[in-house]
């Protein structure tokens, strides 16, 4: 079974600065997908960014980018120019699937991101 580990229960950053959230995973598959989800206090799950394992190029979405190291099984999220609205829980997730239709996400325990004004 796949596992996802987020080793930072909480991170704090000054507004406008850059912060990196860590995520490692364990899998024996060579083709898979990785996601970062944001959960603000409203508890709505919001997709931040996704990465296909077969792509060497790191994904970028505006101020959000990832550092994907496939050999190290590492998938960190970098948030540049942090804003107060970025304050939330951030979850790293691994998507597993099979040709037979099995499919789902395995989540880490999350990192609580605090933005200091």
């Amino acid at each position: 079974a796949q596992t996802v580990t987020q080793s930072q229960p909480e991170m704090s950053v000054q507004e406008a600065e850059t912060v990196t959230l860590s995520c490692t995973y364990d899998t024996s598959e060579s083709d898979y997908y990785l996601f970062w989800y944001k959960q603000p206090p409203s508890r709505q799950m919001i997709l931040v960014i996704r990465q296909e394992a077969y792509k060497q190029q790191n994904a970028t979405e505006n101020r959000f980018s990832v550092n994907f190291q496939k050999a190290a099984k590492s998938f960190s999220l970098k948030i540049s120019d942090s804003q107060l609205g970025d304050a939330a829980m951030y979850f790293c997730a691994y998507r597993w699937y099979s040709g037979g239709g099995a499919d789902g996400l395995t989540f880490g325990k999350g990192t609580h991101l605090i933005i200091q004004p």
Partner: protein
Amino acid sequence: NAGVTQTPKFRILKIGQSMTLQCTQDMNHNYMYWYRQDPGMGLKLIYYSVGAGITDKGEVPNGYNVSRSTTEDFPLRLELAAPSQTSVYFCASSHSSGAYEQYFGPGTRLTVT
């Protein structure tokens, strides 16, 4: 589009009672999922469905049942509620597997006392 809707938003159950959590999506997605989120934890998959009439167990299926008679609806049934089922329940849907995004509902907070 409403996306993924869940009812109710909150519910308190007594031990041994049963209830059904409703989930509906209007995006014509084939794939649907139920997750639970315990305090301080990530989401864990309870059941999933890859199309009408097809369901399968996820990581934590004990104490739950699902059905998928239509593409739009994916209800989750709790039989004989136990305190261990106190959690926030999320329904999600996706067009397909792989890189396709899973869209989540707003969640149902369930307390069993």
